[in-house]
Each structure stands twice: as C-alpha cells, then as structure tokens.
C-alpha cells in the first residue's frame, strides 16, 4: 500500500511538473519546417499513394487474369469433347493394378454421414451478459456452468417447453465468486439457457490485481454425467487452466493474443517448361514431345490458416489449403509402354495412364495427344512472414502437398473419341514446393483485416513420376480476410 502511495505521489509530481510546461522552439526549427509546409506536403503521402497504387495494381491483375480465362476456350477439340461423355459412359477394361472409374457413377456417389446424437453449443456475447446454452440430446446429460469474475446473479431466462422444471437446476457453486450451474436430465430436444449479469466495472478504477478490461472469462464443462446429484469440478477460467501470467507456465491468453485466423483464396496460374524431352526407360530411348503447347488454367487454392505473431516483425503461418490444379497440353505423351498387351500404358506428363481396351491402344506411338489434367490436393504451408512496416510483408517458406485425386482427359486427332482416366496411380502423393510472396494488409476493423499480394511457388518435384524431372511454377495473387483473436499486442 505504501508503495502505491509513493507511486501515486510520483505520478502526481511528474504530472504537476509538466502541466503547462513549454519549450520555445529554436528559429532554425521553423526554417526547416517552413519549406515543407509551404509545399503543402503531407508526410507519408508518398507511402499512402504507394499503398493505394499497390492495391489497384493487385486488383487489376486479378481482373485481367479472370478476363483472360473467361475469354479463352478449351484447347481440347470440341468435336472430341462432345464425344467425351459417350466414352466415359462405356465400361472400360480394367487392367490389373489400375483404377478406371466411370465419372457419372462417381459424381452420383453420395457419402452418408451419421448424425451425432449429441449436440451442444455455447456462446458468449459481446454485451455485458454472458450466455450459456446447452441442448440436451437423447441419452445424455450435460452440465453447463458459468464462471464469471464479476458475476452478480444467474437466472434462468428461457427453456424449451419439453424440459420439465425438475429437470433443470440452477445452483451457485461459490457464493463469493458467484458462478452458476445448470443441469438437466435426459430429454430429447430439451434446451435450457441461463444468463449471468455482469456488472460494468467503474471506469478508471481497475480491480486490484486484474486489468479493467470489462471482460469476464467463462468456462464450460461438457458433457458431465450426473446421476441425480450435483457434482462440481475445478471451474477455473480457461486462461488460468493453462497457466498464469508471469508464472513461467504457458499462458493461453497471451498466446491467443498473437494468433490470427485467416481465410485465403489464391487464384494461381501454373507454368512448366518442358519442351522436348527424352525419356529413357527399360534401356530404350524414345524421342518424345511433351507439352509443346501448354496452357495454364486457373488453379484455385483456398483454405484456413493460422498466423502466429512472434513479434512486430516476424510471424509464422501454417494451415490447410485445398487446391484444384488444372492445365491443358498439346502434343502430350506419345510414349507407349507395352509391358504386356493387357498393360498398355501411355506415359503422359500427368503420369502413366492405362489405355488398353479404350480404342487408343490401337493408335500409333507417334500420334498426337491432347491432355487436360485436373489434380486436387491438400496443402500445408509453413511460411515465415516478415513485416517491413505495419502493412507490407514478405512471405517465404515451404509447402507440403498431399495429392488427393487426379483426372486426365485425353483426346487425339487420330481418334474420334476421348478418354478419361481417374486415379493417382503412378503419381507422387507427397510433394513439396517452395514459396515466396509479398503482400499488404489493410485494417478493416479492430479485429479484421484484408490482405492481398502476389505469390510464387516453385514445386520441388512434379506430381508425375514418369521420368520427367520438371518443376512447375505457380504464380498468382493471394487474397484473404484475417481475424485477430484478441488485443494483438503488436503495433498494427
């Protein structure tokens, strides 16, 4: 207490000393300032202009990319495309160790999900009330508890009609700390809701030992089986369950302040320089013409990520993204490996494709094929981010991707039909890429910000494991919304 008085004394002393204190500036200062204000120069106007120019350039780039894709039609032969469905509907021979799928059957396949018999939810509102709602499902019994630091009262404010009063209990766990407990017996579709009134702390008078944030912490224990009598467990606030400040233990609250959740979408274009390739396989050398003309199609990449702000400058980003990659090639894959008559395969830039029984097995090995390749894969980035200032940043890191599915559609001038193959046989499932990106984030509100910037990815290995050692290059624009968990603890 005496220290507090001394501190207050010092604060008052300093405040009084500098109350109305002035220092008359040197004339040289005005001489330095005058030319600049005469030009009516706004400091950092250049920076502001650059920021908006950057946004405009990025938006223009996205628009141009979309327009470009909208205007370009498929390079696949339209005639062959018309026949595509007919061929796809026909039953294809199924060579051993390969997977041929009927696309229509695949598309009609549905996955039935088993609904969970248990539902529960809890919500916290930004107002001065905290709500906890528990939906009681069949054969289950939940306890929902509110624990607020400054909780005054706990009242039942609503319940479903099917929930009998004796099935709901409200009890104060600790009359000092005033948390409440709600419990209900087994009942289908019953729901209860309780509200704890939280007083607004007087402004400028923080509670001793606690910051005057006006927030209460709350915790929920679900589910908890109770056979007729109330049972209690440790009901400390969540942030304290994970350690206290300055205690040396991991502090969840401090950690969450540095976390940002983001949803990102990146339209990417791909590029591969393949040209003429020579493949040596089984001791035979065949001159091949891979991808004489390759046309990049729009690759969609989107997902959720987490950004950990280690400090003002450095962050780490990781998450999970889903990517739909596609490109079309002409003069693709003329190599035919005849291991046996039943295992006739085409060696394409998308991997080895079995063609026995499709009609294409009758084509000459010098026939020209066109291919459209669709891949979908999951991607986990691990990227370091460096903020040059409060808005501009550079991303650099690596991406791991797991190939989920692939589909290759092949047409040929020498064959009136088309052939489609789905599967990941002969493809690498695990792939790595290096990425480099630049970006700008723009604060939309105290919690949300928008970020945008160009990104380049260089794939360390190609998806196809057919002897070609190519490194696809992707470039595009990453754009997304980022959500700050709490008071960030960094400058922007």
């Amino acid at each position: 207490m005496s220290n507090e008085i001394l501190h207050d004394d010092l604060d008052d002393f300093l405040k009084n000393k500098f109350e109305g204190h002035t220092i008359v500036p040197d004339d040289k200062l005005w001489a330095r300032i005058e030319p600049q204000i005469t030009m009516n120069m706004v400091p950092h106007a250049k920076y502001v202009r650059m920021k908006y120019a950057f946004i405009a350039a990025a938006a223009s780039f996205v628009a141009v990319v979309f327009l470009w894709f909208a205007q370009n039609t498929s390079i696949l032969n339209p005639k062959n495309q018309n026949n595509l469905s007919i061929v796809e509907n026909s039953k294809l021979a199924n060579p051993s160790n390969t997977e041929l799928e009927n696309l229509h059957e695949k598309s009609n396949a549905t996955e039935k999900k088993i609904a969970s018999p248990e539902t529960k939810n809890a919500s916290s509102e930004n107002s001065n009330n905290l709500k906890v709602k528990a939906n009681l499902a069949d054969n289950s019994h939940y306890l929902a508890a509110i624990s607020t630091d400054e909780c005054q009262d706990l009242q039942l404010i609503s319940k479903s009609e099917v929930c009998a009063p004796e099935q709901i209990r409200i009890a104060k766990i600790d009359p000092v700390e005033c948390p409440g407990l709600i419990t209900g017996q087994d009942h289908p579709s019953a729901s209860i809701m309780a509200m704890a009134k939280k007083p607004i702390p007087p402004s400028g008078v923080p509670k001793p030992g606690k910051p005057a944030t006006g927030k209460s912490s709350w915790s929920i224990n679900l589910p908890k089986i109770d056979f007729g009598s109330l049972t209690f467990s440790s009901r400390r606030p969540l942030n304290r369950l994970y350690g206290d400040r300055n205690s040396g233990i991991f502090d969840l609250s401090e950690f969450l302040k540095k976390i940002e959740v983001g949803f990102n979408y990146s339209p990417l274009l791909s590029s591969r320089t393949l040209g003429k390739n020579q493949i040596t396989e089984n001791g035979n050398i065949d001159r091949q013409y891979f991808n004489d003309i390759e046309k990049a199609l729009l690759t969609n990449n989107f997902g959720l990520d987490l950004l950990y702000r280690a400090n003002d400058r450095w962050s780490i980003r990781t998450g999970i993204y889903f990517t739909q990659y596609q490109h079309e090639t002409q003069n693709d894959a003329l190599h035919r490996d005849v291991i046996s008559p039943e295992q006739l395969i085409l060696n394409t830039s998308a991997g080895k494709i079995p063609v026995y029984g499709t009609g294409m097995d009758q084509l000459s090995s010098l026939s020209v094929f066109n291919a459209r390749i669709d891949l979908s894969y999951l991607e986990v980035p691990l990227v370091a981010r460096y903020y040059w200032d409060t808005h501009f940043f550079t991303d650099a890191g690596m991406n791991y991707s797991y190939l989920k599915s692939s589909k290759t559609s092949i047409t040929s001038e020498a064959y009136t039909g088309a052939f489609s193959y789905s599967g990941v046989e002969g493809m690498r499932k695990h792939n790595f890429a290096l990425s480099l990106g630049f970006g700008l984030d723009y604060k939309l509100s105290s919690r949300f910000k928008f970020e945008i910037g160009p990104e380049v990815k260089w794939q360390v290995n190609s998806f196809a494991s057919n002897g070609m050692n190519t490194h696809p290059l992707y470039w595009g624009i990453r754009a997304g919304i980022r959500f700050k968990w709490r008071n960030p603890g960094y400058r922007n």
Partner: protein
Amino acid sequence: MDKTGLDIIVSGCLQGDIQHKKAFYGLFAPHLLSVSYRYAKNKIDAEDIFQESVLKVFGYLHQLKELEKIEWWMKRIVINEAIRFYKKNRSLVFIEDYQTLNAAELELSDVYKKMEVDEVLKVIQELPDRMRLVINLFSIEGFSHEEIAEMLGISVGTSKSNLFDARKKIKILMQEKVRRII
C-alpha cells in the same frame, strides 16, 4: 486565444496561407516541443519527432472535426510520432533487464519535489526508451496499461513491469542528482 481567433487561424492554414501557418506554429509549437522532449532521449530526437509531428499536424489539419480538441489531437500526433520514431529505430526491442534494480524503499522527499522541471526532464530522458514511453503515457498522459500495451505492441504485464522499473529508476536518478546538488 478564443475560439473565434483560433478558427480564423485554422481556416487560414487550411487555405494554405503561410502567415496563418506561422501564427498557428507560434501558438502551439512550445507545448508540442515540450511533449517531444519528454518522449525523446535527447534534443536531436526531440526535434526530429517535433518536426515530423508539425508536418503531420499541417498535413492532416483538414481532418480535425472538433476545434475544441485541437490540443489533445496534436498531442496525440506527437505521442504517436514518438512511438513510431522509436519503433522505427528498433530501440524498443530490448528485454526487460531492469528487474535487478535496487528495490530498497525510495521515498520522494520534499527535496526532490523542489527540483526544477528541466532537471526532471533530464531524468526522464535518461530512462531507457520503453520505460520513458511507459512512464509518460501512464503517469503524465493517463493512459491505462491496456491502451499502452496496444500502442507499444507489448503485453499488459510488460507495461506494468516497465512502469514499476521506470518509477524506481526515476527515484534513483533523482537521488543522485540531489546528492550532487547537496
């Protein structure tokens, strides 16, 4: 100066009249320079902060909506500029290394209270950057620790710890100055 007179000067500044700008500068510069000195560790830094702040004041004067709050508005510009200045120079990136300060009871006797404001200013300027910012923001400006944490990009705990250390350091420095005088 009454509101009408200030209104005329501000209107003149907005129209780009240099005489009005000079009058405006003469009116507020002494106060702003004092604030700059409190947040800076030396005269050079203080004048840099002051100059950038004055340019910002003139640059963004058209955004000022309530003339009654002009002093507070300009003061906030100086404060923000000081924070930006030290962040830019990366001098805020240091660990809390003043935990070992002598925790002996230090009393603020009447002798200290008789210190001149310039001497007190020197004491504040001798503080490490972050301590100086925190003591200014908390003790003199009246910001809360949450606000300071947000402004400086530090945690609330760090802000409290820096304030505690700054108070101790100020008392030690003031003792030394008084001993020299005696």
